Structures are given as structure tokens and as C-alpha cells.
């Protein structure tokens, strides 16, 4: 079987222009910090002055106190451990399956033609709609959570990686061919490296979906986990604990997105469409 790169050339999402930053260095960070601080202050004041009941919105101080309390008495750790395990396994499997499959689908035109309808259909289906099926197949234990997280995050990773492989610059292919590259060499020296930026973008998108998957998964018959903790706290009107859960998930998401963004930035400098 001969290896032929998929024929169509998709148009990449425009990369953010690098030189869009205006104003003073660090000005954005300062403005951001000030606006967040202002918001927290307003929130705290509204509750302290009795304008809004803490039952509905909690308050920054109450969230902090509750959060620290949960860490101090250790009641949060089992939930963290369970959600962490689900996330690592679900998202890890998604990356492990999505990246190679995306690469293969980008490279082998025929494989792409065969699998594309399924990928498209599943990508378009809200993954939460699959939850009842997943429970029928996997029950309500860990494997069900892993399955929903996997299904939530695998498609962004797969599709983005595939797009990366399929949008290789034709000029690079010609250069490689001119140097006598075999199909395998073309794959290794051109297709793989030039799809790294897309791959990272896919991981970043997948990450967000994986976090949604945690919360959604734990809403159905879980017995531990951050999502479960929030669910039970919500049912008993412990707004502070719900907020702690939200804050934890938001923080985890932001930290990991940051990390991947930093990686993307490093590769952005040589991103083909950025460079030309």
C-alpha cells in the first residue's frame, strides 16, 4: 500500500498574531489582577452588607475558610484522588488514542475516508447524551467515568492532530522529495514535526472537555470525587462547598491550560502559517 498524504488542504484556524500586545509591558496582567480583586471585593461586600444571601452566592471569605477547612481535616483528599485518577486515566487514554489515530487519519487518505463519518457524528453529538449508554455498558464505577472523560476529550485531540497532518505545506513535501525522502522519511521529518502545534492545540481543547467530563460523569451514581462532592453539597444547600469545588476545577483547568499554552508559544515561532 502506498502512503499518500490526504489530498485536500484545509485552512488552519488563524493563529493569534504575536504582536497584538499593545500598551505597557505587564499592563494586561495588572489590569486583570485589579479587575479580579475588585470583583472579589464587591462580592464580599455585597454579602457582608446583607445585600445578597450567602446561601445563594457564598462569599470569597467563606469559600476560603471552607476550602482550607476541607484540606485541613482531610475530607477533600479522597474526592481529589478519585477525580484525579479519573482525569489522568480518561484524558491520558484520550491523548494516547487521539494523537496516533489523528496522525494516521491525516496521513492515510483511505483510513480517513472510512473513519471520518464516525468521527464527525460522535464529535457533533453532545457527549452527555451518551451517559445513559455508558452506564449501561460500564455501570457506575471508575470505568464509566473514564469512558465519559475519554469520549469528551478524544475528539478535539484527534481532529486537531489530523488537521495538522493534513495541512502540511506542499512546498515542504517537495523539498523532502527533492532530497530523496522515502514515504516514511517524509512522515517522520515533515508530517510529524509540522503537526506539533496543532497537536498541542488539540490537547488544550481536549483538556477543557475532560474537565466537563469529570463533573458530568460524577453526577451519575458516583460515590466520591469533586463532582460528586459538589452534587451532594448542592443538594444540601452547602453553597460554600459547591464553590470550593468550582474553584478547584477552575484552578486545575487554568493551570493546565497555561502549561499547554506556554508549550504552544514555544512552537508558535516556527508555526508554518505564522512564519510565512
Amino acid at each position, binding site marked *: 500500500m502506498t502512503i499518500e498524504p490526504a489530498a485536500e488542504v484545509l485552512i488552519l484556524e488563524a493563529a493569534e498574531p504575536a504582536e497584538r500586545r499593545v500598551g505597557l509591558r505587564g499592563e494586561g496582567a495588572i489590569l486583570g489582577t485589579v479587575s479580579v480583586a475588585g470583583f472579589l471585593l464587591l462580592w464580599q461586600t455585597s454579602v457582608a452588607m446583607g445585600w445578597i444571601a450567602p446561601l445563594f452566592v457564598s462569599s470569597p471569605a467563606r469559600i476560603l475558610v471552607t476550602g482550607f477547612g476541607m484540606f485541613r481535616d482531610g475530607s477533600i483528599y479522597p474526592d481529589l484522588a478519585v477525580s484525579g485518577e479519573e482525569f489522568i486515566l480518561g484524558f491520558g487514554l484520550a491523548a494516547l488514542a487521539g494523537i496516533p489515530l489523528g496522525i494516521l487519519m491525516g496521513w492515510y487518505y483511505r483510513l480517513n475516508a472510512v473513519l471520518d463519518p464516525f468521527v464527525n457524528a460522535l464529535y457533533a453529538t453532545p457527549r452527555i447524551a451518551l451517559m445513559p449508554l455508558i452506564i449501561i455498558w460500564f455501570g457506575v464505577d471508575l470505568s464509566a467515568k473514564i469512558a465519559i472523560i475519554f469520549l469528551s476529550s478524544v475528539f478535539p485531540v484527534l481532529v486537531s492532530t489530523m488537521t495538522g497532518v493534513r495541512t502540511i505545506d506542499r*512546498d515542504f513535501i517537495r523539498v523532502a522529495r527533492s532530497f530523496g525522502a522515502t514515504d516514511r522519511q517524509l512522515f517522520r521529518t515533515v508530517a510529524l514535526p509540522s503537526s506539533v502545534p496543532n497537536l498541542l492545540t488539540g490537547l488544550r481543547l481536549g483538556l477543557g472537555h475532560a474537565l466537563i467530563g469529570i463533573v458530568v460523569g460524577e453526577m451519575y451514581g458516583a460515590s466520591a470525587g469533586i463532582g460528586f462532592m459538589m452534587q451532594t453539597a448542592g443538594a444540601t444547600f452547602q453553597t460554600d462547598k459547591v464553590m470550593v469545588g468550582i474553584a478547584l476545577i477552575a484552578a486545575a483547568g487554568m493551570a493546565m491550560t497555561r502549561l499547554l499554552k506556554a508549550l504552544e508559544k514555544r512552537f508558535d515561532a516556527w508555526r508554518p502559517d505564522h512564519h510565512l
Partner: protein
Amino acid sequence: MTEDVNQRNREKLRARGVRLDYWNERTRRRLEILAGIDLTVREGELVAIVGPSGCGKSTFLAAVDGLVKPNAGAIEVDGNPVIAPGHDRAMVFQQDCLFPWRTVLRNVSYGLELRGELSRHEIRKRAESLIELVGLTGFADSYPHELSGGMRQRVNIARALAPHPELLLLDEPFASLDAQTRDFMQLELLKILARTGTTALFVTHQIDEAVFLANRVAVFSARPARIKQIVEVDLPPQRSLEMKLWPRFRELQDEIWRSIYQETIHLTAAE
């Protein structure tokens, strides 16, 4: 250019009756690009190709490189028929097309890496000496986006030269450079070719560039291309920039210009 007569007469490239058609899927018509090219390039020679835009110069170069297959005719390099890209030839593309994810050193190493004959260390040494040859010492670890257009083009040339090709194919390599950089690069190229003893086929739109660099200038006709005329450049082999002001230089330029101009008229008349 001081080889003995034997050397000078050895044929490096021999193209006979090279015909090439493209099938245009959209208009569902066959487009005749090359209508029988006969061209011989001797060892150590630089032959420039000029001709109207779209006449098939790049296509001919691609055929010599083995990237496209002619419909008829024969192309031989050192007596061996060209069937695919090979290590005896290397192409310098118009767009520098450097791999943005590779450093200068690793771009230059590319061809040698693919070949897998040399050790990592030997590849590195060879690449470093080429980087020095094109005057980019100290930039080995830079990425292409950190270089100027002229520097990138020099990396492009170094990358093509690294596998020690017998025949270097250059497709308007200096087209995107400013006039001063181009003058400089022309001199550099001649030096490099002389030092490495490489034969070259050089496509350009700049007639003065063709005359300045070449031993002979082949004028392509309008599409479908044939060789309309071959102009011997009877300037001293050791070229210098002030030759561009010599009357003989001007005469050669005029002769070539007129030749292309007639073709352009044919082209517009045909449309």
C-alpha cells in the same frame, strides 16, 4: 574554471527531446508545457535559463530533479537516466522553504540525514563547514525565522550543497532579494560553485543575473517551451561586478532581452 579540456568537455547533463504535458483536471484539457527540450550542460559549467513567465522553466528543472516525469525524451546525468530525485542532484527552490522547526545546522544536515550514510558526527562536521562556506558561522543554532531573507537563501543553498550534488538546480533563488544583496549573493554563489566544482542550472527572470553568472544562457520559447536560442557569454571566466557596466555585457543583455521579447509578443498575440 581552469580544468583541462577533457574535463570541460565532459557532459554532466544531457536532455534530449524532453516533452512534458500537464493534465488540467478543471478544464479537462491537456496542457503542453515542454515541447522537446534539448540541452547539454558540461561539467563545471553554469547554464542560465530565461524565458517568458509560465513557459515551463520550473517544470524543466523539476524534471531534471526527478520530481516530475517527462512524457517523452531522455534526461541523463553523468550518463545515468533520471527516474527519481537522487543524491547527484539538488534543488534550490524559489521560496527558501527552510524547515521552520529545524535550526540552521539541522536544515543544512537534512539531505545527509535522509541518506543515513554518515555518522551523526560527520554530518555535523560537513554541515558546519557548509555554514561557514556560505558565511553564516555563528548562526548554526538559529531558527530560520530569526534570519533575514538573504541569510535564509544562503542556508537554502547550503542545504542543497550539503550532500555534495554533482548538479545544482536553482529556481530563481535570488528573486526575492534586494538589489545589493542579490549582487553579493551572485558573487558568493560563483565562489562557492568554483570551490566545490559544482555544475549548475540556474533559472532566472533577471537578464543581467543570467549574463553575469552563466557560461551560456538558454532562452526558452513561450509555452510549449523549446530552446529558442543559446547565447554564449564570452566574458572572462572570473566575473566581477563592474563587468555589468561593460559594453559587451550590455550587448549580451540586449540580445537576450530581444529574444524573450519576441516570445512575449507571440504569447500575447496567441491569447
